[in-house]
């Protein structure tokens, strides 16, 4: 693992809440739309945001052994994920500082900051089990 100051880490910002525009005045909306576009463009120009997309409100949720398909997520929800940014930044601190600049925050939007992992933690655990087994076999 690199320990130089140029090491970069990837983070995902998940924007939660897809109805925070309700009840805003046209002037407030104008400002938040302009601020959000400017924020995204600046982060892209700085090379800190390498991608991002809004998600359609409608979707499907699949669960269970029967693979049940339900409409979802809940179209109007404070928890629903409305979109994401993919960040490449120095560390978690920088990712949090960027999240704090989200123009939707003052209207009730919530930002989840998550590190992007190189490898699934469950796969690592399975690997550890099988290493353990191999070690046991050769002991």
């Amino acid at each position, binding site marked *: 693992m690199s320990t130089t100051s140029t090491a970069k880490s*990837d983070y995902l910002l998940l924007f939660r809440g897809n109805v925070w525009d309700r009840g805003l005045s046209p002037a407030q*909306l*104008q400002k938040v739309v302009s601020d959000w576009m400017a924020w995204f463009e600046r982060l892209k120009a700085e090379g800190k945001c390498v991608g991002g997309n809004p998600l*359609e409100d409608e979707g499907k949720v699949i669960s269970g052994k029967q693979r049940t398909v339900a409409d979802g997520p809940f179209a109007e929800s404070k928890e629903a994920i409305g979109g994401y940014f993919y960040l490449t930044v120095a560390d978690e601190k920088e990712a949090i500082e960027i*999240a704090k600049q989200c123009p939707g925050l003052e209207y*009730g*939007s919530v930002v989840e900051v998550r*590190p992007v992992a190189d490898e699934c*933690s469950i796969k690592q655990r399975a690997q550890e089990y099988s290493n353990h087994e191999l070690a046991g076999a050769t002991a």
Partner: protein
Amino acid sequence: MLLFRGPHWDRGLTPDQLQQAMDKVMAWFEGLNEGGKIKSAQPLGTQGRIISGTNGRFVLDGPFAESKEAVGGYLVLHAANLNEAVEIARSMPTLSYGVSVEVRPILAECPIFQRHPDLVQRASERAVQAEQLWVAAAA
């Protein structure tokens, strides 16, 4: 975009069961990849932060690590339509272990912005005007 919810599906599985499940997941993923269906995919670290409030004044640890709702990773598909994405999601092996999959169409433009096209138009015009002024000033 497929969002995988419930990152602790491996709890309670024996090492053999876990190995079998992981083999199925890897085969599923490789099959999709070879079929050119995967645009990007990453697991997420289970640690993260939740930012809320004006200027992000609340920073909490999250998401709730034990939650069945927590997003454990994502996969961006090349799919012809929502039906194809749902069919791919239904073939995901860990559904049998309690994971649920949220299928969400990715948009080029935010639904909140779409609800207010006049504002977006004005915001873009202002951005162009500002750039023109800047170019004129620099000339």
